[in-house]
């Protein structure tokens, strides 16, 4: 057993340690014949599967064939080389969050949330905000010292900025679920730029985005403070808010992430 935990170089496991067995399926734009199966094996070989078996091939229409391939993958996985983004903040209970807010802000912390662009998938943001909550945890609306405004779906970026200003939002939570043609990346980049434009440098609210297909480590590129992904719970978000907004009550509040992104965007250096 323990050997599983110790060894840092591992391989895929079919039914014996080190057998490297994996399953692959894909479609090739060719009719099904011997050559097509050869092509499938060529691709498998390039993926590192050798030996590999085409166990299933099904032609779909005149020009496409679907393949299922099993084989031994020659690649090794080095666990030491895996970079994981560890949570940079402690998980707090709702009470602790409220206490932190009281202590440092001496007023409710204002949060607004929305699905921006044409995205109408509100279940995710609602899971974080609604009292009902998610995975057994109550949503931010249930936190005594958080003032939550859920703007709902398909909110345009200008509207979002306007609301943020009128409501004096400390944090803006944005959800993006539709990812076709990278819609989520375009929308978020546009959104963060708009905030930096609308606010005096360093005073922008904390920008938080979430959705099932984001890369947690892409916050800097997108010009936001934090990204939350699949399986996020309200408690994590609340804890992050406390960590981010209540740790240093006095100190300035310009996320380094924004700096980086600023340099990228046209309006860099605006004062």
């Amino acid at each position: 057993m323990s050997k599983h935990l110790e060894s840092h170089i591992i391989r895929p496991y079919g039914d014996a340690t080190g057998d490297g067995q994996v399953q692959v399926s894909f479609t090739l734009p060719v009719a099904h014949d011997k050559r097509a199966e050869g092509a499938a094996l060529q691709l498998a070989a390039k993926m590192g599967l050798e030996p590999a078996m085409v166990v299933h091939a099904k032609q779909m229409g005149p020009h496409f064939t679907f393949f299922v391939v099993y084989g031994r993958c020659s690649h090794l996985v080095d666990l030491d080389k895996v970079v994981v983004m560890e949570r940079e903040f402690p998980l707090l209970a709702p009470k602790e969050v409220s206490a932190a807010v009281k202590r440092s802000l001496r007023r409710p912390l204002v949060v607004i949330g929305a699905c921006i662009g044409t995205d109408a998938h509100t279940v995710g943001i609602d899971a974080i905000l609604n009292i009902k909550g998610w995975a057994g945890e109550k949503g931010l609306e249930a936190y005594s010292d958080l003032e939550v405004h859920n703007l709902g779906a398909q909110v345009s970026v200008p509207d979002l900025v306007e609301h943020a200003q009128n409501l004096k939002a400390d944090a803006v939570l944005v959800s993006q679920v539709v990812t076709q043609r990278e819609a989520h990346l375009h929308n978020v980049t546009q959104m963060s730029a708009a905030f930096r434009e609308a606010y005096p440098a360093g005073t922008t609210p904390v920008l938080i985005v979430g959705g099932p297909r984001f890369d947690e480590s892409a916050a800097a590129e997108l010009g936001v403070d934090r990204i939350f992904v699949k399986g996020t719970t309200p408690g994590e978000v609340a804890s992050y808010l406390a960590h981010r907004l209540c740790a240093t009550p006095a100190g300035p509040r310009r996320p380094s992430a924004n700096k980086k992104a600023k340099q990228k965007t046209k309006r860099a250096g605006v004062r």
Partner: protein
Amino acid sequence: MTRRGKGKLELDPAVVRKARSLARKAGKPIVTLAKTHTTVSVERAVLRLAGLSGADPEGEPWVNHVVDAVRQDVGLEHGVALPVWHAMASGDYADLTKLAQRAAAGSVIFHAPEGRDATRARSASRKAAAAGLRKIDNNRKTRDRFTKKYGDPPKPWIYLIVATGDIYEDMPQAQAAAREGADIVAVIRSTGQSLLDFVPEGPTREGYAGTYATQENFRLMRSALDDVSAELGRYVRLTNYASGLCMPEIATLAGLERLDMMLNDSMYGILFRDINPIRTFVDQRFSRQIHARAGIIINTGEDNYLTTADGVEAAHTVTVSQLLNEFFGKEAGLTDDQLGLGHAFEINPTVPESFRLELAHALLARELFPNAPLKWMPPTKHMTGDVFGGYLLNGFFNLVGSMTDQDILLVGMLTEAVHTPWLSDRDLALQNVRYVMESTRGLAEDFVPAHDGFIVQRSHQVLGEAIDLLERIVDDQLLNAIADGTFGLMKRPADAGRGLDGVAKHSSSYYNPASELLDEYFADAKGHAR
């Protein structure tokens, strides 16, 4: 067949009658509202029916120019027909397009005509609208001819979605889908089109997660499917979405381009697009009258509720919505065989006996609406990245479809939680349907819910809860119920939401030739029925 007679759920006819009459009570006030209001989109639909199409170089449709201009000059409350055809009579415009161009240039001033002017404008507009309705009638005849010639496919009809965003990619994919066995092809729309207060023009090559609904895209896709229908000797139906801010216009375009089905729910726009309730209901009635006339089958959207609410707790809201959709639909002239009422397999699969619960719900819909072409929707919310488990779940969804004798089966994708369907996803999905349908054909006759057993009791419970809810709705008015988040847990007050500014109460002199013609038509349709 479960279609007629006693039924497997031993539903009490009196209870069923009660449910329907409550739905009528709840819907009546809305109908009055719809009959006494108009919207920018209804008025634009009239102009489209009269043959006005096209857009200015920026892509703003001429119908928008005209309606906006009329509204500026005389307001919306009289309808655009009289002012427009009065202008046509006064000025020398080769056609409506010329008028529109001049109106766009700001060089037309519209008046609300009186007396003989009004009469003349009225009959001119009536002629124009009638011409449009004739086109629609001819399309209906053409469809009937095709279905007679080819014969209709056996139930359930296999419904597949295409969504590349590019109409020129959509066409071959739709034809491929048809060859793979699809009886119905739906081209889903680009996200956000529903919030546009105009219908884009021409063929389009880019949309997010869907393709724009335009008259030209409709035409291109319908003819692509006509080709493949001829090739396969099977009439392949085309579906799109009459929803969002342009519902009436899109319905009209669907009729003009011989689409066969339209997603058209009485509350979807309100709940899932935050469109103003009144705007929605007014647009709704007009578009359903058009669908009725065009012989288009509507698909309602009850499935959507269960994506935000729980499949067990909210089961009765589906029933309530189906009853309301039925009432609104029939009031607008739709016949039973045009009511593609929706429901879905969305119960959490880890719930004990979830499959029997699905059977209970699906059978309840089947027996409440024995003659409606029910649309059975696959699991989506509880689909995960476990594509193997997802493939299995879709198989059990198909099985419920087979055991409860559904009419329209929207084919589920094993990658629902991952991406919009791939070619191979669709092919696998069709193999799944084919296996289940072929191997279980006739199994419905061996499916006899135990007298007073789990399934019967559950179905009675859901119907009971539906009746309770309808009673509450009747008491505090449907609009308030919607405002309180009764459906899909969404709160939508009547005085909020998108497109409210596009709504106007009829003036005493309101005139709409299309509505007039449609009302007459259904009046004597009823006449014949009697």
